[in-house]
Each structure stands twice: as C-alpha cells, then as structure tokens.
C-alpha cells in the first residue's frame, strides 16, 4: 500500500510536468522543433518568484502573474529573434534544434550570472534554495496538506479547461488549431499565422514560468533545475504524442506518477535502489515509449490493445 504522502507528492510533481509538457508541445506544434530551451523558462520562473520574494517581500504565490508575463516574454523573444528568422530562411529541424540548444546555453548562463549578482547583492544563498518553509498548510479529511498540491492542481485544471474552451469555442483558438495543422491554407484564408505562432510561444513560456513558481515548493532549485526537468518534460510530451495538447497533459501526469511512485517502490527492499537514481526512471520510460509507441499513447489503437489483452 502506498502512503498518502507519496501519492500527494506524485500529484504535485505530475502537475508541474503536465504544465511543462503542455508548453513544449505547443512550441513543437508550430515549428516542429523540440525546444531544448524550454526547461530554462522554468528556471526563469523560479528566479522571478525568488527575486520578488527577496527584493520586494512578495509571497511566491503572488508572483505567478509576473512569472507568467516574464517567462512568456522570454519565450516570445526567443521565437521572434531566433527561431522565426531561421524558419523563414528555410532552416530544417536540425538547424532549429541546434539553435534551441544555443538558446538553452545562453539562458542557463544568464541565470547563473543573475544568481551570482543576486547572491552578492543580498548576501544570501541563491542556489539550492527552497520555498517549502514559506508554504501554507491546509487541513483536509484529518490530514495536513501543503498548499502547493492544491494550488498546482487547481492551476492545471484551470489551464486545461481554459485551453479547451479557448481552442474549441473561440475563433482565434480555432484559427490556432488550423494554423498548426496547415499554415499555408490558414494564411490563404486571411489568418495571421505569425500572430498565432507568436501567441503559442508566449503561452508555452508563460506556463513554464508558472510551473517555475511552484517548483521550489516541491524541490530545491537553482539555475540548473530547468535542465534537470527537460528530459522529464520530453518524456511527458512524447508519451502524450507530441502533437496533442491533451495528450501532453496526460503524458505529464503519467510521467510524474511513474517517477515518484517508481522510485518509492524501487528504494524499498529487496531492490533498495538509491533515490539518486530517480531521474533514470524518466530516461527508461523515454526509451520505452520511443521503442513501443513512438507516436505516444494518443496514437495507440486502444481497442486493438484491449482485444490483445483479452486473448
């Protein structure tokens, strides 16, 4: 029997991965580039919340709107200044992918420099910090819950519902789906594909920023935290099919649960695996998905799978 605390921890971690995978999938849908810089937008979100708390005394939860805007703006800038010009010149996936690695290095280096400056200015630790001590507690069904699990769950639910309504009920959302499916046709209908792509990149960064605010409540964070989250985000996104937004959310939830519950089980006897190997679970899942279902869970013919199970 799994302890409730482990399940609660899995929920929090899965929520963050779902937010990240959603953003990564959004950018992939536009330019078909796996964006290696996506993880650093989480780290940027972490530092927005940290800076506002240390410099202005604002509680990290109240920094969510600022992180949303700042990280969205960074992502949009990377699209407008790097990816769009390359794409317009006919750059292929390899060029765009290498460009995203370059952007990743620049962003991560920038965060390291910023953390150093902040450290000398505040005379405090800017690496390996946590917001856990700032979190609120909520009593529910005789148990004490940390507020981050409630906040991240509500955020993910709100994002999922808003995204569904936006994409299916609004004209701009429908235009977004159309521009993603067939940009030339969308253009020939008078849809500004450039604007649609720019909005997608902004949203992707903004969601990563929000995940970044929650992250230090769950684990110690530093400028490397985005890089650490990147492979897990790719796993979640690919598990979700890479081209499905709802699949990305599902992929994020499954990857998060697999990692937290997996390491809990494996760290117990008889395996007694060190928890330091925890990220290996995502790596193993990543390889398994690529081998067994490269199109992700949304590409599987579930009726066939169920028929095979019954046999």
């Amino acid at each position, binding site marked *: 029997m799994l302890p409730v605390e482990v399940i609660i921890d899995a929920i929090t971690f899965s929520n963050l991965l779902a937010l990240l995978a959603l953003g990564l999938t959004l950018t992939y849908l536009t330019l078909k580039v796996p964006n290696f810089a996506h993880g650093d937008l989480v780290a940027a979100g972490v530092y927005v919340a940290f800076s506002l708390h240390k410099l202005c005394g604002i509680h990290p939860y109240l920094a969510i709107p600022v992180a949303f805007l700042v990280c969205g703006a960074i992502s949009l800038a990377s699209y407008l200044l790097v990816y769009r010009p390359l794409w317009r010149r*006919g750059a292929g996936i390899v060029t765009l992918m290498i460009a995203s690695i370059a952007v990743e290095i620049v962003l991560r280096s920038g965060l390291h420099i910023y953390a150093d400056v902040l450290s000398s200015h505040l005379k405090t630790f800017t690496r390996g910090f946590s917001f856990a001590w700032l979190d609120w507690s909520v009593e529910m069904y005789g148990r004490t819950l940390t507020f981050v699990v409630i906040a991240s769950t509500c955020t993910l639910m709100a994002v999922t519902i808003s995204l569904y309504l936006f994409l299916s009920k609004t*004209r701009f959302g429908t*235009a977004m*789906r*159309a521009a993603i499916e067939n940009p*030339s*046709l969308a253009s*020939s209908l008078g*849809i500004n594909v450039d604007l649609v792509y720019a909005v997608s990149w902004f949203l992707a960064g903004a969601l990563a920023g929000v995940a970044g605010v929650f992250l230090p409540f769950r684990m110690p964070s530093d400028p490397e935290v985005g890089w650490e989250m990147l492979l897990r985000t790719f796993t979640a996104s690919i598990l979700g099919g890479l081209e499905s937004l709802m699949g990305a959310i599902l992929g994020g939830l499954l990857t998060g649960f697999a990692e937290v519950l997996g390491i809990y089980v494996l760290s117990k006897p008889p395996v007694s695996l060190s928890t330091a190997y925890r990220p290996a679970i995502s790596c193993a899942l990543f390889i398994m998905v690529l081998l067994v279902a490269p199109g992700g869970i949304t590409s599987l013919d579930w009726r066939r799978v169920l028929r095979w199970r019954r046999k």
Partner: protein
Amino acid sequence: MVVLRVKDLVAGYGNLRVLFGANLEVRRREIVAIVGPNGSGKSTLLKAIAGLATVFSGRILFDGVDMTAVKPHERARMGLAYLPQTDNVFSRLTVRENLILAGYTIPKDEFEERLEEALEFLPRVRAVLHRKVWALSGGERQMVAIAMAVIRKPRLVMLDEPSASLAPKVAAQIFDKIVELRDELGLGVVLVEQNARKALEISDRALLLVAGRPVFWGPSRKLREREDLVEVYLGVA
C-alpha cells in the same frame, strides 16, 4: 473589368526558379484555365499569386493594386480565394469550423447570413456540417473547399486541380459548381486542371505553360483548335 493581371512573372521556391515570364489576365465573370504537362509550373503560378511562392521579378496586380509584396493573409482579405490541390481543408476540424475559419475576416454579425448563402449554393455541405472533415469523401471535401471560398465573397477564386482523384461523376458535379461560380456569382475563376479537355470546355480563356514558359494565351476555343499544341502538350486528341 479586369480583376487580376500578372505581368512577366518569374517565380519559384527558395532559390529555384520554376516559372519564367508568365502573363495572365482574369476578368469578372470569366474562367481562365491554366493547362500544361506535369511540372510546367501551373501550381507555382497559383501559389505565387496567392503569395505562397517566391517571386523573383514581375508584378501581380489585383483590382489595379500591386500586391506582389503583400503578405498571403492580406491578399485573402483583399478578395482572393485560393484552393490548393491537396490539403485544401482542415481535416481535424468539423465542416462548420472550417467554414468559420473561411469567414475569419468577416464581421461576426454578417457571418451567419454568409454561411446560409454558401449552404444554399452548396446544399450537400449542409448535410455534413457537423462532421469532421477527415470522415468525408473526396467529393464532399472539394465541396467544403468551394464553400469555404464562396463564404468569403471573393472577387477571384483560384482552384488547383479540383477534380484530382475524384470519380468522373463527382468531378462533373465539381465542374458544374465552378461554372456556377462564374455564371451565378459573377466571380473571376482561375482553374488549374489536369483534365485539359474539360478545363478548355468550361473556360473562356486559357494559358498553356510548358517548362515554366507561356506557349499559348488566348481564347480557350482557339487553343482547342490548335491540334499541334493540344496533342503534344495536353494529350487531348
């Protein structure tokens, strides 16, 4: 009244030139057919007019306005409708969503009225309005594509191989609708078609392209009479 005029157009993709000095003119209430063997640059000409191919030199005038450097989505707003050869509808969306997108530039209060007009013009589309496009037959998809053009009340419709992969009976229905675009709605139509016999039959004027160069431009009737060109380049005996 001339809707579209193309002057000495050299166009292609990236650095590759496919079309060399094409000239074209389309009036209101006129069908202009662009015919020629495979790879002669017919589709490239349409794409260049729609703003989806690279223009190296030459001019494209729409209603007398030079739109050579205008962005594709702005050309659409000017009254140009382009139906590509493949992927001319959004497969993952419903027919109604496709039509909503086609009317993207139309004020919201006008949309329902325009939709009703388009459905009256193409009654077959009404029956499949709430179905996903991927579940439709080839003929139904073409009808939806035409409805998407009609809803925008364009002044010029460009169709790239609308009868491709369709059964002869369904293709005939599509050609009937193209004629109605001209006769009932008074639109200018540019038609790229592999079925040269049919294209020359329903069109008023024709452009014959061979290896990216114009070989004939004039009344379709006259091209039909040019046995030397028709037999060699169009395979129509």
